């Protein structure tokens, strides 16, 4: 049997194996290129009706914080919102909100209706800051160390399970955080 007639099927076998392995992977596991790196510089005004805006300096106050990307038009955000409220009430961790591409009055109404777990908020009207943070889709939650470096990132709804599996061990110091260059 001549090689040139067998080559197509040989190539296909390789492809099929890759597709098979690919199926077992979760396309949501997208690590951020920014993990271990300093969060991008930004300085945003607060969401309408609030006084404290959000800037890079807020992430360098010496303690770990969560940065949660949310929007009023984002339905899954409602799903994770009660958990964020619990965390804020229990003072587990400081939570900062990055409000992505929202209408100011919608964002204000949303926080009024569902409660405001955020210590400070940044209104990212044009989505530019979100792009710099490498946000794929709302909601996303970042864990930032006290020096302004991103330690972890979760895409999609934050659940208690995710929190306990991925966030809390780093926050409690039980798991070594990734190397940072801050």
């Amino acid at each position, binding site marked *: 049997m*001549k090689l040139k007639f067998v080559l197509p099927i040989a190539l296909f076998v390789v492809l099929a194996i*890759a597709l098979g392995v690919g*199926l077992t*992977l979760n*396309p949501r596991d997208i690590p951020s290129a920014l993990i271990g790196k300093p969060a991008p510089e930004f300085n945003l005004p607060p969401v309408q009706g609030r006084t404290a805006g959000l800037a890079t300096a807020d992430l360098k106050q010496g303690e770990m914080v969560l940065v949660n990307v949310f929007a009023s*038009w984002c339905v899954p955000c409602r799903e994770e919102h009660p958990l964020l409220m619990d965390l804020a009430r229990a003072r587990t961790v400081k939570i900062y909100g990055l409000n992505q591409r929202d*209408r100011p009055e919608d964002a204000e109404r949303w926080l009024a209706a569902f409660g405001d777990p955020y210590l400070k908020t940044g209104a990212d009207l044009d989505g530019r800051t979100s792009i710099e943070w490498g946000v794929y889709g709302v909601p996303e939650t970042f864990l930032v160390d006290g020096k302004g470096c991103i330690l972890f990132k979760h895409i999609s709804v934050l659940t208690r399970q995710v929190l306990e599996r991925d966030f809390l061990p780093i926050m409690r110091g039980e798991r070594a955080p990734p190397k940072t260059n801050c």
Partner: protein
Amino acid sequence: MIAETGHFAVILALVVALLQASLPLAGTALRIPAWSALAVPAAVLQFALILLAFGCLMVLYITSDFSVMNVWQNSHSAKPLLYKISGVWGNHEGSLLLWVLILALFGMAVALFGSNLPPSLRTRVLSVQAMIGVGFLGLLVFLSNPFNRIFPAPVDGNGLNPLLQDPGLAFHPPFLYLGYVGFSIAFSFAIAALIEGKVDAAWARWVRPWTLAAWTFLTIGIALGSWWAYYELGWGGWWFWDPVENASFMPWLAGTALLHSAIVVEKRDALKTWTVLLAILTFSLSLLGTFIVRSGLLNSVHAFASDPGRGVFILAFLILVIGGSLALYAVRAPALRAGGLFAPISREGALVFNNLILITALATVFLGTMYPLFLDAITGAKVTVGPPYFNATFAPLMTPLVAVMAFGPLLAWKRADLMGALHRLKFAAAATVVALLGALYFTWGGPVLAVLGFGLGVWVVMGSLVEVVERTRLFRASARDSLNRAIHMPRSVWGSALAHAGVGVFILGAAGALGWESEKLQVMKPGDQVELAGYTFIFDGARPARGPNYDATEGTFRVYRNGELLTVMQAQTRRFANPPMETTEAAIHPTRMGDLFAVVGTPAGDGAYQTRLYRKPLINLLWTGALLMAFGGLVSLSDRRHRVGAPSRRRVEAAGTAAQRA
């Protein structure tokens, strides 16, 4: 009852497909004519059953029957009728049903119009066609039933993804599928030929019109998708090298290669195994495209949520179909008698060059699309391959192909005269030089690549016209004689000239849109004005507006040119409630030399809005070019050579005229 009828029809169709896949094939092998004879009625019955099921689903959508899960998930009673209908295929299950409907349609077409095929070939083709049907019907029946009920029935549905609520996108999937699935015929013919062990000129003559039809549909489908992305996504882009776009583009590249290599089989009885492989490859890429979109393997706007069970099923099916056909190829292809050698400077030499480049380009697109997956599978690293890779590899690869495209049709079969072809292209070359100098003069200081691209486009358009001019003896014979010659010129010659000119027109559009675009992004208050490429945009502020199932913010721009009011443009941002989502409706004002494009973005307080303004020269030529390609395909398809029994009828006619003269 309607849902149950549809469900039952799908199950029956699966049974019929199983019969059609097995008995006729066994019948041709064992020489049992009664079994072979089943193929044609089975193909017709299969289509009727799937049409019934599809009709049922459509009725459920139109009547908003939310007791059916699929309707509840993807429709809403407040949706306009058009989108209730297009919602049928705007989801996983419904789009699969459309897929098998088209598959069965093509199968029936072979059954009814294939009476001039050798009976054994037709039977085998229909059996192979039914095997593909079995796979997809099985997926529908066992894992993706569109007719599942929910109880109690919800009051209203979840609504269709607003991005899909658009006339352009309503017809994008059906055309795409007509293309994808149309290639299944070429595939079935290839498999049947491998089973029979015979590929000859007649085989190629049967395969070509089917491939051409599929290619034409796919061209229209891709163009519709690109047009939609242009006016709907609000960034003025028209091709993003998104995995799903690539998934539709790869079969197009392979199909284009197949279209050309089949000519060589027909005329020169060469490139047989290669053409068979291309037919398998083209349809395999169509299947892979379906797999990529349906499995959620690659994240994309286009992917509808799905569960891993389906992914495993589709992969198993893919391995069976592609792996099986390639294994058959490895065993049987060596038995196909190879054709003669040929000179590099000849029509067939040019067609081989065309194939080499198209396949190389296909390989680069394939690598770019699949590389993230490979890397993830091997190392776990996540990367995205973006437009920079594709732009850097694809365009340079295609340039030589496009540059020699004008030569191809002018070269003779077997041994051609390159100098003669060059000589005949002198007017095209002169026109290109003039266009290059003109473009350089008008865009001095602009991007050089755009000027070169523009020149290339002019070259291809002019080069494609040369053959028409030559054949009709335009400017040399009398106008009447030329017209007469034009009418009697074979439609396939017209078709290829039109399609090739379409490529040139497309390149003109791409050069203009990529190289000479102007854009301005800013915050504008009512009354603000912005100058852009000689046009003055005055923002008149934004007002709320209402649509049938959305609220919108509508921004108005007055556009002045040389102090005179040219047009008033109204751009919208739409907010849908079901499901909650925002879409942008760009305002587009077409001018003779391209589009003005305006988008109203998020509000910035005090009645001010983020606005994006673009001028996109020549962009209308992109779609004109694509449509011209498709039109060329249609014209070529109408060539009498492709029609049933045409050659013999012509002979009779000729004999008749001869008799009259005598």
